[in-house]
């Protein structure tokens, strides 16, 4: 009876995180502020995490969850480096607008 | 052993000259080139005595794509090597007392060129051959680039890329052959054996033909030629026209006909038509050329077109003719360009309109120039005649009308050559050319040797023909099915 309502198809998680991922992508395309773009990338990573956890929970092996740890690690490292770069840029040009970064072209 | 020596001596020589410093570079280079020539002479005598077997060298070189270091000297190769090693000293001699800048580099490049050319003519393994083929391009490019004329840069680059384009297609063709070959290798003996379907042959034919057609060059792939000849330093031009063109014609015989007989059967007619059209086209253009070197370039275009036509005629006299004419043309064109250089050296111009009346100022020069001109208009008893007679007869046997058309070269050749000679050498003395010192010793020597060879070959061509006959016969049997 309410058994049906108890069940969540894995596809839903697939769709959800795909959607999240695409929102992240859209953010990257949508904004000019480097920090926001960074955050959108974090969003993409998290959609991946979510999907991983869903898979691992479904398939019952915890490799997925472990992988999420590593993604977190990397995300942290990335953010650290990214923000460091951002700061040194901000020191030079006083802006976080990526459209200003076009000295190098053609 | 001798083969190895024959191949690598020029390389060593070039290094020696490079390290020897510019002061005596010319003398050193000449000496070494003469030694190489002597070695060649010895090789010829051995060949006459005991045939080609003594010369084959075979070492496996690369395992996984099976490439072997396989050299050989059959009659054909030996003739070409002989030509190369005979002309190189002449070419070096022609550069004496011209005080070339950076002489060491210059002459070592010439010798490096010799090395590559000898390699091309000796290589019996596809990839090895290809490597030498490409290698030959580099020294000549730098010779033209460093010591060339005013707007050499663009022209030589065009020449380099144009010819390279052709040869890369050939590389592609070779790789295809490699995979068609059941026991994958580039060895010529196996390439001669392998079976390739008609379809594949007919487009492989173009891969190779384009490469050779650009190098030879056959109209309409010739546009690099005249400019390059004009802009290169004389020795470069001599190397290009005297020997390098022969790479193309030699390769037609060695690497195209026997390997892709059906391709040749299918496209040969088109090729030979191109050649013949090219002959007339080039001859006609040559008539009105105002720059001496340009004129010679177009004349050589016509001659080489006839050589190629003779090859595609696919009969023994055509082949024989092509071999004889390769040598003859090599000798003549080197002589002609040397004469052009002598004129330029004294008058600082090669514009025929600015020349004239040299004859009575420099009788010796005139005589030698005249003989060489006669050689290149194929007067009997000069080397040019033997070649053209056989070639035209070859073409005739292939198709009568084609031979009539090709025969026009006899008339047109006389027209543009004599016209040139008249404009440059004859006419009122001292009007356009005030003074013209006669030949210096080195010029006299070089031209003298050439003249003697021209007549000797015209009177007694038999040795060359006998040397080439068996090879050509076998190749012909492979080609004509």
């Amino acid at each position, binding site marked *: 009876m309410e058994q049906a309502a108890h069940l969540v198809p894995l596809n839903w998680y697939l769709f959800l995180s795909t959607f999240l991922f695409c929102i992240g992508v859209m953010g990257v395309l949508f904004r000019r502020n480097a920090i926001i773009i960074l955050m959108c990338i974090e969003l993409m990573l998290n959609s991946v995490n979510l999907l991983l956890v869903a898979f691992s929970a479904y398939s*019952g092996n915890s490799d997925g969850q472990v992988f*999420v740890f590593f993604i977190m690690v990397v995300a942290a490292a990335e953010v650290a480096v990214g923000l460091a770069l951002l700061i040194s840029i901000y020191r030079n040009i006083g802006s976080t607008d990526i459209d200003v970064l076009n000295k190098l072209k053609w | 052993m001798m083969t190895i020596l024959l191949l690598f001596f020029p390389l060593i020589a070039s290094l020696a000259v490079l390290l020897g410093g510019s002061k005596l570079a010319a003398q050193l280079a000449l000496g070494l080139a003469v030694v190489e020539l002597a070695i060649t002479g010895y090789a010829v005598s051995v060949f006459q005595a005991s045939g080609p077997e003594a010369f084959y060298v075979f070492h496996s070189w690369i395992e996984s794509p099976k490439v072997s270091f396989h050299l050989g000297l059959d009659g054909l190769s030996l003739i070409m090597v002989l030509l190369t090693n005979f002309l190189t000293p002449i070419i070096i001699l022609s550069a004496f007392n011209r005080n070339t800048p950076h002489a060491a580099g210059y002459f070592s490049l010439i010798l490096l060129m010799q090395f590559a050319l000898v390699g091309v003519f000796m290589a019996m393994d596809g990839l090895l051959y290809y490597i030498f083929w490409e290698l030959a391009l580099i020294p000549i490019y730098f010779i033209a680039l460093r010591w060339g004329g005013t707007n050499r840069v663009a022209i030589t680059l065009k020449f380099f890329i144009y010819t390279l384009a052709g040869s890369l297609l050939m590389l592609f063709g070779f790789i295809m052959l490699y995979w068609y070959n059941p026991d994958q290798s580039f060895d010529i003996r196996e390439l001669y054996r392998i079976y390739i379907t008609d379809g594949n042959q007919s487009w492989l034919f173009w891969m190779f033909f384009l490469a050779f057609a650009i190098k030879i060059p056959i109209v309409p792939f010739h546009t690099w030629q005249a400019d390059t000849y004009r802009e290169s330093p004389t020795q470069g031009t001599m190397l290009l026209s005297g020997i390098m063109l022969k790479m193309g014609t030699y390769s037609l015989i060695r690497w195209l006909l026997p390997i892709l007989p059906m391709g040749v059967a299918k496209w040969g007619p088109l090729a030979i038509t191109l050649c013949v059209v090219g002959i007339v086209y080039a001859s006609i253009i040559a008539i009105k050329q105002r720059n001496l070197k340009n004129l010679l370039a177009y004349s050589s275009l016509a001659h080489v077109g006839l050589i190629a036509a003779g090859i595609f005629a696919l009969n023994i006299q055509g082949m024989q003719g092509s071999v004889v004419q390769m040598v003859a043309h090599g000798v003549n064109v080197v002589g002609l360009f040397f004469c052009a250089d002598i004129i330029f050296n004294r008058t600082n111009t090669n514009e025929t309109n600015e020349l004239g009346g040299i004859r009575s100022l420099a009788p010796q020069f005139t005589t030698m120039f005249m003989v060489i001109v006669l050689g290149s208009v194929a007067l009997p008893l000069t080397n040019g005649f033997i070649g053209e007679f056989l070639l035209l007869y070859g073409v005739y046997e292939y198709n009568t009308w084609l031979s009539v058309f090709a025969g026009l070269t006899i008339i047109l050749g006389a027209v543009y050559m004599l016209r040139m000679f008249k404009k440059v050498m004859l006419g009122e003395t001292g009007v356009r050319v005030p003074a013209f010192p006669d030949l210096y010793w080195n010029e006299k020597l070089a031209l003298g040797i050439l003249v003697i060879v021209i007549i000797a070959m015209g009177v007694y061509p038999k040795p060359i023909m006998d040397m080439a006959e068996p090879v050509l016969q076998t190749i012909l049997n492979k080609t004509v099915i």
Partner: protein
Amino acid sequence: MSQLLFFTLSAMTILSALVVVFTRKPMYSVLSLIVCFFTIAGHYILLNAQFLAITHVIVYAGAIMVLFLFTVMLLNLNADSDVPKSGKLRIAATITAGMLFITLLASIKSTTLGEFAFPPASDKGLVQHVGQQLFTDYLLPFEISSILFLSAMIGAVVLAKKEKH
């Protein structure tokens, strides 16, 4: 029951994610991203990955987002410092992302995966199990990731340290 939970959480996640993208004020984006992360943590709990959920909250909400906040404040970015892209580009961005979504979906929609109830019957998410695995099977990556950290650390220091020009 669990479907309901799923939908509510998902709705919140997506909503907050959209806010991150669309709001003009960086500060708002940061905060809504934090919210988004919390909802995702909720998902983890639903999926019976308790330990992961905790770590997630600590690392992201605790560390990374703080870092973001810190930067935003440091560079005191506010709405007017943030120039939006031109309308055309915005539309283009939306369309492109949409196309990506559609193509992805079109490619995977045909997959049929199983379904499960919350919480899935497994203790895989418990700390000792995860730890167990982390220090046996995943020992090597664990060690390797230290290199990553090390070089990231050095890098961050080298880059961010103030020096006289």
